[in-house]
Each structure stands twice: as structure tokens, then as C-alpha cells.
């Protein structure tokens, strides 16, 4: 059965090998250049004055390819699931060949597992090769990036788990739906759904997040709830994965999320002409935006913050002695999390496989 499954899969194998060769060549040529650039110019530029501009120039080189590497890494498992997993069983139902296959002298379990094994192996190998090449290629950029967690999904070993899960999911959906095109679409979108769910709700909890409390001090760096400068000073560290950034009152009451005040950090967005009723009932601070002139009253015009008014507002806020509570995963846990996530997807794949075997025998 393994021989025959391979024989059926031969074309796909050749296509995949061809694509990987092309990718390898492109990555190889550009990657070597990038690595060389990085090693000679960027790595040790801290001693030079123009380090900042050199670094940002480097970071925007080969921009298109950077996007391809990231997007490719995200999309590849979904594509494998849709193109390799979904047709695996669905096509046999559509063409009626299951009536030939199920009346040979092998059980349906053997038949299904033979097909699964071939496609799973191919997906794992393809994904492993692509991810290895992509990880190597992106190393210079990753060195300059803040957090290794930002590229988590397309690096190292988790994509292998995604690929395995995607083809397993595709095969299971194909088994249930029995129409190839419908199975392909369904696989693509349900795979995306599972990925989003696991990334947002499971990954943060692979290990209990660490907590760090610090004083909430205005002025703050950005107006969009980004990582405040407090973080870089002895807290989670620049490379950490910040899960939550909650603002607390002096007594510990929660008054804001996402690095600001209010549920969306709306401290950063002011209504014009009103004094800010800030701090969840703790008090009032003056606005940083001046009221519009009388002849423009009633119109929505954003004049822009006045530096003196800004300082007055910030002094007022700091007088309440607010705190920032960070929950985060340190960069040191990157590899642990990679293994946990890989294991999760492998377990899901195993469950789906068992379900598929049970289902195919029921018919």
C-alpha cells in the first residue's frame, strides 16, 4: 500500500522538489549576500556614529523577499493542507476509485494509513527544508529584531507541526466532504481558524507568564499603546513577548489596558475641548489639546497638543502614582515554546488521524 500511495503521489513530489530547488537557489544567492553584508557592515556598527541609518538601510534591503519569506512560511502549511491533504481521500470518492481500493485485500485502515503516511512524510520534509532555508536566510534580520517571538510562526520547528496538522486536517475533511474543491477551501479556512485560536488562546499559556510591576510614568513614548520605555529598563527585556500591559491605580485597581488608561488605552485619544475625566473615577486632569477658537467652536478640528498643556496633563497624571503591570514570556522561553507548540500540533494530528480511521471504517 505504501508503494502504491507513493506512486499516486509521484507528480506532487516532483513538483515540490522542483519548487524547493528554485527556492534554495534564490535563498542561497540572496542569503549569502545578506549574511556577508550583515557580518561586515552591520554587526559591529555600534562603534560608528551612523549605526542607526546603516541598520535601518539594511533592514529594508530585499524587502520583497522578506515579505515572501514571512508570508511563505505562514502560507506553506495551509497550501500543503489544501493541495496535498484535501484531495488525498476526496479524489478517490469523486472518481469512484474507492470502490476499487476498498475491495482489494487490504483493510480500510491500512489503505488510509498508507496514504496518510506518504503525504505526512512529504509535508514534514518539505516544510522542514523550506523552514530551515528560511530561518537561515532571515538570521541577519532576526538579530536586529526585538523579539524572537515576533517571527515565531515561520521559524525553526513549529512550521513542521503546522504542515503535519494541515495535511491531516485536509485528509480528514476530504474524507467527510468527499468533494475535492470544497474540501480544499474548507481545509484552508479551518486550518487558518485553528491556527488563530491556538496562537491567541493556547500559546500564551504554555508556561505561566511572568509578571512585572513598575511605576506608570508619563510622558510615554508612543501614542498607540506600544512598549513603553519602562520595559527596557530591567523589566521583561526588549526581546520578551508582552502579553498584557495593564495600568493600575495606587491601590491596585485596574484602570486601563494596552499601556494606556481605559479599555483601549484611550488615554491617548482625547476629546477636544473637554477636561479629561481620567483614571476611572480617581480624578480629573486637564486636557492636552487647547479648545478651538470661538469662531471654530462646534467643529471637529484637531489643533494639536500644546507643549505646556501637555506637561501640565502629565504632571497631573503622575501625581496619582499609577502602576503598570506587565505579563510576559521572556525570550529565553522561545525554544521551549517551539517544542510545546510543535507537540500540540502533533497531538492534534494524531487525534484527527484516529478520528479519520474510525470514520472510514464506519461506512
Amino acid at each position, binding site marked *: *500500500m505504501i*508503494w*502504491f500511495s507513493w*506512486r*499516486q503521489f509521484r*507528480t506532487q513530489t516532483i513538483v515540490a522538489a522542483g519548487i524547493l530547488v528554485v527556492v534554495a537557489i534564490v535563498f542561497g544567492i540572496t542569503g549569502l549576500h545578506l549574511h556577508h553584508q550583515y557580518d561586515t557592515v552591520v554587526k559591529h556598527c555600534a562603534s560608528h556614529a551612523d549605526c542607526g541609518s546603516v541598520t535601518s538601510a539594511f533592514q529594508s534591503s530585499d524587502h520583497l523577499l522578506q515579505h515572501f519569506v514571512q508570508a511563505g512560511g505562514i502560507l506553506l502549511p495551509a497550501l500543503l493542507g489544501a493541495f496535498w491533504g484535501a484531495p488525498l481521500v476526496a479524489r478517490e470518492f469523486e*472518481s*469512484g*476509485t*474507492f*470502490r*476499487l481500493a*476498498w*475491495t*482489494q*485485500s*487490504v*483493510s*480500510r*485502515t*491500512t489503505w488510509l494509513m498508507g496514504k496518510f503516511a506518504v503525504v505526512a512524510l512529504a509535508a514534514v520534509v518539505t516544510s522542514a527544508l523550506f523552514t530551515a532555508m528560511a530561518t537561515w536566510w532571515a538570521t541577519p534580520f532576526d538579530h536586529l529584531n526585538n523579539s524572537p517571538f515576533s517571527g515565531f510562526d515561520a521559524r525553526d520547528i513549529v512550521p513542521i507541526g503546522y504542515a503535519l496538522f494541515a495535511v491531516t486536517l485536509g485528509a480528514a475533511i476530504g474524507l467527510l466532504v468527499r468533494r475535492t474543491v470544497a474540501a480544499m477551501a474548507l481545509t484552508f479556512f479551518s486550518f487558518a481558524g485553528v491556527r488563530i485560536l491556538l496562537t491567541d488562546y493556547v500559546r500564551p499559556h504554555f508556561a505561566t507568564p511572568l509578571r512585572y510591576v513598575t511605576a506608570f510614568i508619563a510622558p510615554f513614548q508612543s501614542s498607540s499603546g506600544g512598549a513603553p520605555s519602562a520595559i527596557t529598563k530591567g523589566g521583561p527585556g526588549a526581546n520578551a513577548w508582552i502579553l498584557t500591559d495593564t495600568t493600575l491605580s495606587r491601590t491596585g485597581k485596574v484602570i486601563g489596558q494596552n499601556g494606556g488608561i481605559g479599555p483601549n488605552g484611550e488615554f491617548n485619544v482625547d476629546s477636544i475641548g473637554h477636561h479629561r475625566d481620567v483614571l476611572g473615577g480617581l480624578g480629573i486632569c486637564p486636557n492636552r489639546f487647547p479648545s478651538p477658537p470661538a469662531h471654530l467652536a462646534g467643529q471637529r478640528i484637531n489643533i494639536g497638543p500644546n507643549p505646556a498643556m501637555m506637561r501640565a496633563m502629565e504632571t497631573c497624571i503622575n501625581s496619582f502614582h499609577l502602576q503598570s503591570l506587565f505579563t510576559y514570556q521572556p525570550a529565553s522561553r522561545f525554544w521551549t515554546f517551539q517544542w510545546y507548540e510543535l507537540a500540540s500540533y502533533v497531538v492534534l494530528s494524531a487525534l484527527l488521524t484516529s478520528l479519520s480511521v474510525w470514520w472510514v*471504517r464506519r*461506512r
Partner: protein
Amino acid sequence: MLSVLLGGGPKLTSVLTTEALTKRYRRKTALNDCTLALPEGRVVGLVGPNGSGKTTLLNLAAGLLSPTSGSLKVLGEAPSDDPKHLERVSFVAQDTPVYSALTVEDHVSYGAHVNPRWDRDLAERRIEDLGLDPRQRAGKLSGGQRSQLALTLAIAKRPEFLILDEPVAALDPLARREFLQVLMETVADQHVSVVLSSHLVADVERVCDYIVILVSSRVQIAGDVDDLLATHHRLIGPRDADAPTGQVVIESSYTDRQSMLIVRSDGPVADPGWLVEAINLEDLVLAYMGQGRRLDRGVSADSSGS
């Protein structure tokens, strides 16, 4: 509905036994309360109009469907996923599915890989006799060639029981003849029981020695062809005459002067008022098909409360 079995002598084993076998889908009943005992070592013809349940019955026998109620046994055991059972039965589905992208050779190798009883010499000889190019992709074969390939795969597996679902329906007369030639040669050569379904009575007449007539999802009658032909007659008599006693009337038609009946009887027709004629298989099948349809409509009328 009464399902009648007419035997042709002692049948020690049955290749396919069903007991009140029913298969229902959401909206329709594909097979209704079928009880059969097909003798082994025969070529059994399953005849009936399209949609009468032939494909359903054969798929059930091949283990590709499971019954809604009732039971069936193939070669003494319920159809199952067990390779030991699967190697004893071969199935050629309607439209003879093959893997279009793979070659003839690939299909034969597939058979060799997965079937322990595979007869490699037989397969190779058959492919050669058919003049098939082993490297030809199966999708490029003609309909006749595809069905011959499917038959080769089924035969080289050396089964005890061969199930064929309308194997020649879509073939031209020459391809049909060639297919049946190969099939009959195999039956003569190996000891194998065959069930094949067809809506062409002429083919069934040629190759089958036992038939089952399936109409509107029910078995109308089943039995040895010779026995059926011996026990069914056409009776011609005057318009107002009563049907002779002891006969079961299958079909009747009248002109203003004459009655013509097709009857089943267990003994000779003694009534001198009737002219007795033999009947051929086609007319017998047609008579039962007509009866089946009438009964079906009669049942529907009753259920609508009229």
C-alpha cells in the same frame, strides 16, 4: 412481498444469502426486504430496470455499504474489512473506475502488491492477449479496454466470488462480446461464482444460469433459469374463460376475443380450454417487471389512503 426461490437441485453452499435486507436513504428506499440465497458456482444475473436497487444490492455484497436493516452473508460471513474476507471477493463497480493518471502496468503492480492470491502470470497473459500497452495511462483507454482492465484486475486476484455491476452497459456490441468471452472463459477455468447485473436480458440469457429479478427495490422472483422457463407458460384462451386452477398469474392481457396470461405453475396445466406455450426469458423478465411496477404503484395508492 413474496420472494420466491426456485431451486434447481440441492445447493450445498450459498455464495450470497440475504435475510430481509433493506437499505434506506433519507428520502428513498433503495432495497426493500430482500431475501435471497444464491447458489455458488453459478453465473447469477441480476436484472431489473434502472433504479431498481441492483447497484445497491451489489455494493452491499461488496461491503461498500452497510444495511439499514436485515442481514447478508457473503461466502458464509458478513462482509467486513478483514483482509481474509476481502481476498475472496472481487468487485467491478459501475463505470469501472480506474486511476486515470496511472498506467496499466501500475494497476497490475498495485494488484500484485496488495493481494496475496495474485496470479501474476494470468494478469500478464491477459494484458498481452488484450493488446493493451502496459505503459498506457488508464485514463486514455477506451471504455471497452477500461472494463477489460478492471476485469483483469478482478480475475487475477483469484477470488471465489466475482461481483460485476453493469459491466457492459456502456460498451459497444463488440466490446461487450469480448468482455463476456473473457468472463466465461474465466468461469470455465477457475471455480468462481459470479453475480452480474444488467438491464440487457439478451446478455443475461447467454451467460447466466440463475437469475434474480429486482423491480422497485424488491425481489420479484429468483431461480434457476431452466427451472423458471420450465415452470412459466403463456396461456391463450377465450376472453371469458376462468384462469386455470393452481396457477399464479403474473401478467394478463385481453382483447375482445382472447385472454393471454403468463402464469407460474408447479405442475402441468391440465385445463384443456387453454393453449399452453413456452415462454422465453425476456418475456418472463418483462412480465415480472410489469408485475413489480403494478404492485409498487398499488402500494403507493394504498398508503395515500385512497
